[in-house]
């Protein structure tokens, strides 16, 4: 029994050290965001939270359209998430629960597309969107990502196990067509899976950098990540303000995550085990 106790205590010591490392950058962000730039650049550095946080945050708001960038990022993230949830679950439902000619072939193609790195066609994708006249507009952020192979693959695995065939047969007997079956049988059962895929997609779009950096050419309509880097480029001499911007940009997602993240973490782990 004593070894059990020792093991428990050692584990907590290790884990608390890890937590410190995990959370330290946030503390440091707060320290820099709440001091003045000369204090940050001085030696020895200030190690404690200062008193200039509000002032620095106000500077961010007066220099860039922070909430505008946040709103744009929110629209893009929600837009992609809603479309992905709909298209992916619909396709996954069809792949998981219906026999149709060419199903395996189509699913095979889907798996192959999964393997193609997104950067392979970065340049031609840009050129294509330029020909459409979409560069600089929200369409460039939302439409190309509106359905993805990962989501369909994942939802299909989920749907296979989660949706009982009897329910579909029952719905068919009631005269429901495919889309009604999707709505009445598929969607309710898939809801937990959708929650995971939704959070996953939302976080990815929210934090995406390379693609919005390239396609959002209008400096007044940037996503939060690109706007943050722009803030650094334009007002880099006011470093404490840049750090206040960084802090403001990470708070919303972390807040949402602390409230609703527990299931998500379990799902991520479960998803990895399925591969």
């Amino acid at each position, binding site marked *: 029994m004593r070894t059990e106790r020792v093991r428990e205590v050692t584990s907590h010591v290790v884990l608390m050290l890890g937590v410190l490392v995990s959370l330290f950058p946030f503390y440091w962000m707060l320290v820099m965001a709440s001091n003045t730039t000369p204090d940050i650049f001085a030696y020895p550095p200030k190690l404690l939270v200062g008193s200039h946080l509000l002032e620095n945050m106000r500077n961010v708001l007066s220099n860039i359209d922070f909430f505008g960038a946040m709103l744009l990022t929110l629209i893009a993230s929600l837009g992609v998430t809603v479309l992905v949830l709909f298209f992916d679950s619909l396709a996954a439902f069809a792949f998981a629960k219906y026999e149709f000619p060419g199903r395996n072939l189509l699913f095979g193609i889907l798996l192959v597309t999964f393997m193609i790195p997104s950067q392979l066609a970065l340049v031609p994708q840009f050129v294509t969107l*330029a020909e459409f006249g979409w560069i600089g507009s929200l369409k460039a952020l939302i439409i190309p990502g509106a359905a993805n192979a990962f989501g369909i693959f994942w939802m299909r695995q989920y749907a296979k196990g989660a949706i009982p065939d009897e329910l579909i047969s029952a719905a068919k007997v009631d005269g429901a067509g495919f889309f009604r079956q999707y709505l009445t049988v598929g969607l309710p059962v898939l809801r937990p899976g959708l929650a995971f895929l939704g959070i996953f997609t939302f976080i990815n779009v929210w934090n995406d950098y390379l693609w919005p950096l390239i396609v959002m050419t209008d400096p007044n309509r940037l996503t939060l990540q690109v706007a943050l880097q722009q803030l650094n480029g334009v007002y880099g001499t006011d470093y404490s303000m840049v750090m206040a911007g960084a802090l403001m940009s990470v708070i919303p997602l972390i807040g949402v995550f602390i409230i609703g993240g527990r299931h998500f973490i379990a799902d991520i782990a479960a998803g990895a085990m399925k591969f």
Partner: protein
Amino acid sequence: MTLTRRKFLALTAGGAAAATGLTGCGSRSSLGAADELSLWAWTGSVNDDLIAQASKGIPGAPGKKVALTRIGGDYKTKLLTSLAGKSMVPDIVGLNDDVATYFPNADQFLDLHELGADQVKGDFLEWKWKLGITPDNRMMAFPMDTGPTALFYRRDIFAKAGLPTEPGDVAAAAPDWSSYIELGKKLKQAVPGAAITDNITSIYAYALAQLPKRYMTVDGQYIGNGDHIRQAWDLSVRVVKEGLSANAQSGSTDANAVITNGRLAAFVGAVWWAQLGPKNAAPESKGNWRVTPAPGGPGNRGGSFLAITKYCKDPEAAFKFITWLESAQNQAQSFLDPVLFPSTPASYADPKMTGADPFFGGQRIVDVFAESAKKYPGTYFSPYDSIINKPITAELVNVEIGAKSSDQAWNDAQHLVDRELTRVGAI
């Protein structure tokens, strides 16, 4: 190739997109609202009050406004990407002294001759005016400011180190780069950690800025392997070897930090650096800075241009705005803030310019920069200068960080330049 890109796209993507109704409105327009001309410029390259005025209405163009966006960091990437993107292109763009880089794509910009630029030609410095004109006489860019160079130094730190403190005495103590290095050594001995440049590339750039020739001759011959470049190279290496560089690479937060925390006690820089450097990064050092003629003589680095893109909603109004912003009177105002040096000689007598600058302890800094501007010989920029400059500065950094010896880095740089120039078909 008989199949052009446009045809190829029309056949494939266009077809697919049309079939699915995705093309929608393929608007090929410029940025901003209909009565608004969008302007892209660097931070610290326009006067805020003038822009505020133009954002209410462009003088001489009723009902039209200007909307400025400040661009930081990789400006060129953003501009080129936006031009390649073909939509959301700004109406008016600032271009740096590498304006010739855009000459191959001069058709993306309007010919300012056709908008009547020649009417005001006489107001501007001739060498500056010429830099914006392509070899086939298309006026692609309109002069903004120029970038006469001088030596900036911290009087307080020089005093602490027992060095001369008055501008005249400092200039006398450091007439050329060698004596400047000696001065730097004394400075560093007295004030450990003090530096006379943020990094190796600044010394190189400002030594190059004093030369009458750069990388190519007017008739397209590469001379970047010549003695004049090698001397500037060796000078930069020497400054680093003497331990007088802060090793804070340009564009990094570190580069700002060494100004803020006072490590950078002296710097040979162009006039606009006053704003981008000490005024922005070290407002608390107000009153301690001075300027004096730079070691090695007069020079010019930077100084921008304005160009109107072919996407512009209202070229006449845009041109009105440009000529208004760059009038002698308004350029004088831009000297006050953000310390842009006019390309219009008539400004130099303007009382706005001859005032004392409290940031520089009440010094009349215009005297120093006007002297540099007057004596500056002018130079030639080829469309390939940026391509050539990139590997050279990258290899200089390799010397600074100790990754390569000076000779090896020089050879590698020349080899890379050769590859790049061959690839673009310049040699």
